């Protein structure tokens, strides 16, 4: 049995289920208790689990991230609520120098089973410090796993998997998707890391879409079908680990690909994904893999500018058409 619920509700369910299952799981962050976060995602949890397991902190991201590392090292399973992905910059030392490395540096003696729940996504008119999509930064750090749910279904299944993982996991939710609904099983389920999902089968071109770009690529695929182009849409779901096999299978079939991601394109994740595909499917490609990331500018506040910085369905469809028409995209 499956019902339609919002991504926000899906996250709430995942947390509630895991907290019921395992008393070591707790939530820590700013305004997570009575307020249930500014996005109201956690509503009801403090009532069920109490303030001992849904812990409101002072505005001290490095501090509560550090506490989470220590709690995880000593047997608990913290879920850190980082209100905005932009605040990752504040917790980088505790996350990347401490949490990510402790297991390796201790030769396997210490482990840090924790989850950092945060978000990404622009076009919310929140300006440069509340709109970034910073998953590329943490994807680069050995020892961290990175999940990027693209709907309520993935959000629930990946978060439950993250909470049960014995490593530090950073999961990015698209803050513009919190109210979007998707079919989610009533029964418990988990989604494996490192397994991409083909969202729509196609034969002419592969659209690789992370998180917020899933809806963009699905729209683009619809537009393309009107033009007689059959686009395959595939969601990696996790970028660390990355399901190379899954992506390659699709690209080898279609021989063309566009990697679409909301992080800044320059030195972002599209370069890594495109490179891996090029290295391993080079002789199957009719054209270079195209990357479409967010514009490499700080996110502007003005609506007139902000919308220009993020890949849109129209732009993706247009690019796909040109690719399929054999046009050289990057002619110098």
């Amino acid at each position, binding site marked *: 049995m499956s019902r339609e619920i919002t991504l926000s509700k899906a996250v709430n369910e995942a947390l509630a289920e895991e907290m019921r299952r395992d008393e070591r799981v707790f939530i820590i962050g*700013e*305004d997570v208790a*009575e*307020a249930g976060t*500014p996005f109201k995602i956690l509503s009801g949890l403090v009532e069920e689990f109490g303030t001992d397991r849904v812990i*409101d*902190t*002072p*505005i*001290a991201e*490095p*501090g509560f991230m550090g506490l989470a590392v220590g709690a995880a090292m000593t047997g608990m399973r913290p879920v850190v609520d980082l209100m905005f992905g*932009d*605040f990752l910059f*504040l917790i980088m030392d505790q996350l990347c120098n401490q949490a990510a490395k402790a297991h390796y540096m201790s030769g396997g003696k210490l482990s840090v089973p924790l989850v950092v729940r945060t978000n990404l996504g622009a076009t*919310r*008119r*929140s*300006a*440069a*410090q*509340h709109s970034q999509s910073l998953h590329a930064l943490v994807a680069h750090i050995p020892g961290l796993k990175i999940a990027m749910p693209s709907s309520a279904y993935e959000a629930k299944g990946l978060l439950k998997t993250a909470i049960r993982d014995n490593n530090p996991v950073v999961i990015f939710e698209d803050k513009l998707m919190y109210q979007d609904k998707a079919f989610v099983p009533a029964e418990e389920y988990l989604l494996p890391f490192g397994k991409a999902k083909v969202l729509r089968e196609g034969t002419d071109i592969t659209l690789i879409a992370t998180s917020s770009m899933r809806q963009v690529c699905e729209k683009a695929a619809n537009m393309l079908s009107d033009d007689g182009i059959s686009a395959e849409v595939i969601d990696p779901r996790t970028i660390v680990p990355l399901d190379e096999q899954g992506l390659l299978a699709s690209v080898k079939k279609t021989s063309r690909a566009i990697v679409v991601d909301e992080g800044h394109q*320059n030195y972002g994740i599209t370069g890594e994904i495109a490179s891996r595909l090029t290295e391993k499917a080079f002789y199957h490609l009719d054209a270079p893999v195209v990357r479409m990331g967010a*514009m*490499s*500018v*700080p996110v*502007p*506040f*003005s*609506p*007139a*500018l902000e919308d*220009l*910085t993020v890949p849109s369905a129209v732009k993706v469809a247009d690019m796909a058409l040109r690719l399929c028409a054999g046009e050289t995209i990057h002619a110098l």
Partner: protein
Amino acid sequence: MAKTKTNTEDYLRMYRQMVRIRAFEDQANQLYLSAKMPGLTHMYSGQEAIAVGICEALTVEDRITSTHRGHGHCVAKGAEFKQMFCELLGKAEGYCRGKGGSMHIADQANGNLGANAIVGGSMGIATGAALTSKRMGKDFVAVCFFGDGATAQGLWYEVMNMAALWKLPVIYVCENNGYSEYTRTDEVVAGSLTARAEAFGIEAHKIDGQDVLAVNKIANELVARARKGEGPFFIELETYRYHGHHVGDINRDYYRTKEEEAEWKNVRDPITNFGKWLESEGITSAEELVTMNDEIRADAEAAVKYALDAPYPDASEVDAHVFVGVEHGLSYLDGAVT
């Protein structure tokens, strides 16, 4: 901007500036409620005596750093309604050409180094401005505005230590409005804020933030002393925000009572009380104050209308200002000389 004017002028300008802030926020709130404002914004209403009492003690060369709740600081430091509303609406004539918006509004011509959307994010900036003043032999001071919640950020302790060691002309101003977002201050602040500053050897004062004369008095005193190299200083001001954490925070019962809100608005409003005092002192009359209020509201409305009709920045600006001296940041990334 040497201060050669009678107290009367000072008093009336302080009143006027407080009313201007209130009027600005009322209009901003209306813009949100009527769905004309992009995004959310944080109202300063209720805290006017602090921004005005402090900034009236400053010259245009003195620098301030502001917060996500920054409209009050911006107005008090000398900004105009038109450019401010244009910024809030993302228009090209805004102080930041619409690129910053409410949370990043800056007005460096008047010494406002900008609002900041990272809580505590400007503590280093203000302290660094004070470093410039001292190292370059300037005599401006820097005032760092922040909220009670921001005192949880470790950055504050790092920069207080350096400011104290190097005797920098910076004044840390904590507007304690009793809440950080939806959390009561006493739930997230252990010990005493003034003691935290004093532990670094920094002189600290706790003042009623609703009394503009009290705020202005301590500000004049400490700014003068900071200029003489006696800084840094810390001031904690007790105040209250009338609206929600942001304009969208309408139902607040789960974290604070209507009674509490009413009490502050009815009994401790900084504008009403200062107005009464001005009358009782015979400095002005009720009529004059009403006229002033009406004029200011009219100004604000006119500025809103102007901003609503003003043009957005041109699309070509999207990659301007990424780098100083580079017209288009994107082509620059590829090493294309610009």
